[in-house]
């Protein structure tokens, strides 16, 4: 009998509001320590919180994008625990009536669609940052802790999935998709490396086919998608090993050590966390109301899943749709315009995800500085279709357009890339090649049909490579056929 991993992912998203959740201090990354603080986010005596309306709109947006229900009425709670980076020694959070609940996120894994349930999305405030200083800068050898409260009070949305995930790879897909969605909504920078999006995993295993959940272990400190996958894989293996050896698992929080490639238990306080939740008396309830919910819903941008589906419907295969959907917005906008101008969706997508993306990388151009209009792309595709340039020459034309040399046709001409498709000119060249290579003609007539490649080559040489090779090939065949 095999083991089945049961995984849930908790995501913390820092919202990119201008001001903090409960006060007017600026939200920003990298400011001098303790320069964006006030009585409220510093937990000074007498300070009071007032919620940021924009943050509430944005958590509604996240919830709606995740197909959640938005609560009619929601309240804040105090989550009470003592920690140096938590100025009030309670965090204003939400307990049993979160703003959003019961949604789902669709992911694709190994070509198959999977629906991961979303338990809830709730609003809370971030804590300050501790830096441990001392020998080696590692927690267990620290001699002091430095506290910076700039991050204290930044709006944080916590999204909790249902334990529907069944593998580390799935977890990674889920995380990537969620990050992409949040970034798409424009509500967060969602940068793992900066900490504006953070992932924790809850993992247990059970015998396949059983219903009961095993002992749940929480894993923290996964700072990249890769380490998320590695950590979960490790933990699943660890848990199975323990259970197969007849041991028991401890319900605990473990820390992922990227260097060593293992999880190890975090030293927890004796006595479990009793958060003593109660309704935040310094705040009043929030009533979202249908009108506000609809306003937020109608303001949502097109989300990745919907976009991918639209691309597929317009003729792109799943993989191409996915790659295009993940491309920067400027490229996607160019795609839309090109298709509007009549270009084939597949051609446009291939050019943008292929040559254009390669050029951006090669020239280290920022997507924001990129200049290729949809009309230009459509023209480029058209001049390949109508034979003005060969498909290989088109790559040079593209470069010319990207370098700002002009419109595709103009660039083709300026760079002398225009194919010769004029039949009389071609006929002259074809006749010339046939006349200059009687042995080849004889060989062809004797049945060596592949000699035609050589003849095409001769015509190309004679025309400095500008002949339309397809047309040349056709003409040669016709003439050779008539010579026999």
């Amino acid at each position, binding site marked *: 009998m095999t083991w089945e991993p049961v995984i849930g992912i908790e995501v913390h998203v820092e919202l990119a509001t201008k001001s903090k959740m409960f006060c007017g201090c600026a939200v920003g990354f990298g400011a001098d320590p*303790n320069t964006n603080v006030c009585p409220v986010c510093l937990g000074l005596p007498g300070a009071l919180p007032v*919620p940021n*309306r*924009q943050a509430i709109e944005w958590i509604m947006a996240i919830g709606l994008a995740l197909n959640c229900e938005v609560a009619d009425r929601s309240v804040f709670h105090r989550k009470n625990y003592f920690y140096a980076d938590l100025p009030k020694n309670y965090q204003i959070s939400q307990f049993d*009536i979160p703003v959003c609940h019961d949604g789902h996120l669709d992911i694709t894994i190994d070509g198959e669609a999977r629906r991961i349930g979303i338990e809830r999305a709730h609003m809370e405030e971030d804590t300050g940052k501790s*830096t441990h200083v*001392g020998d080696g800068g590692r927690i267990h050898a620290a001699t002091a802790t430095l506290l910076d409260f700039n991050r204290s009070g930044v709006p944080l949305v916590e999204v909790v999935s249902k334990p529907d995930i069944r593998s580390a790879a799935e977890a990674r897909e889920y995380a990537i998709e969620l990050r992409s969605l949040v970034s798409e909504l424009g509500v967060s920078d969602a940068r793992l490396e900066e900490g504006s999006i953070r992932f924790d995993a809850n993992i247990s295993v059970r015998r396949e086919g059983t219903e009961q959940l095993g002992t749940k272990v929480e894993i923290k400190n996964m700072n990249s998608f890769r380490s998320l996958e590695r950590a979960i894989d490790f933990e699943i293996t660890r848990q199975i090993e323990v259970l197969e050896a007849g041991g028991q698992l401890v319900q605990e929080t473990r820390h992922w050590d990227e260097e060593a490639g293992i999880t190890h238990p975090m030293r927890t306080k004796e*006595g479990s966390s009793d958060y003593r939740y109660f309704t935040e008396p310094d705040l009043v309830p929030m009533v979202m109301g249908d009108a506000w919910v609809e306003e937020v819903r109608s303001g949502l941008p097109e989300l990745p899943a919907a976009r991918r589906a639209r691309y597929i419907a317009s003729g792109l295969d799943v993989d191409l749709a996915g790659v295009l959907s993940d491309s920067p917005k400027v490229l996607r906008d160019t795609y839309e315009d090109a298709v509007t101008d009549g270009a084939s969706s597949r051609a446009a997508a291939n050019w943008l995800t292929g040559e254009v993306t390669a050029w951006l990388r090669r020239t280290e151009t920022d997507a924001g500085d990129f200049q290729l209009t949809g009309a230009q792309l459509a023209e480029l595709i058209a001049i390949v279709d109508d034979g003005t340039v060969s498909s290989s020459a088109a790559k040079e034309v593209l470069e010319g357009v990207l370098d700002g040399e002009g419109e595709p046709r103009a660039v083709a001409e300026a760079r002398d890339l225009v194919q010769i498709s004029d039949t009389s000119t071609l006929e002259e060249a074809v006749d010339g090649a046939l006349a200059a290579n009687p042995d080849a003609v004889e060989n062809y007539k004797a049945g060596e049909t592949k000699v035609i490649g050589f003849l095409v080559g001769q015509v190309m040489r004679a025309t400095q490579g500008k002949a339309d090779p397809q047309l040349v090939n056709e003409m040669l065949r016709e003439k050779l056929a008539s010579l026999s």
Partner: protein
Amino acid sequence: MPIDIDIAHVARLARLALSDAELEVYKSQLGDILDHAARVQSFEGEPQIDSAHPLGFVNAFREDETRPSLDRAEILAQAPASENGYFVVPPAMEEQ
């Protein structure tokens, strides 16, 4: 009859480093007070309210605008220990 309380546990939750003698005194005092306060237990009332506010209003928000922050020097002047713009404390134990 006074209620029995795990006073050491409560003191730990509240981060109060009290002596055993102090804990004993508080335990008995708390027992008496809770006895009195426990009269609410027999009360049959409506489901829990989510806001005690008598004027019952909702949706008190602020707009997403920045306000000037405090002057760091003035804040750190009140700090028991600070260094290079940071508050300084001994190393913490692991977070809960």
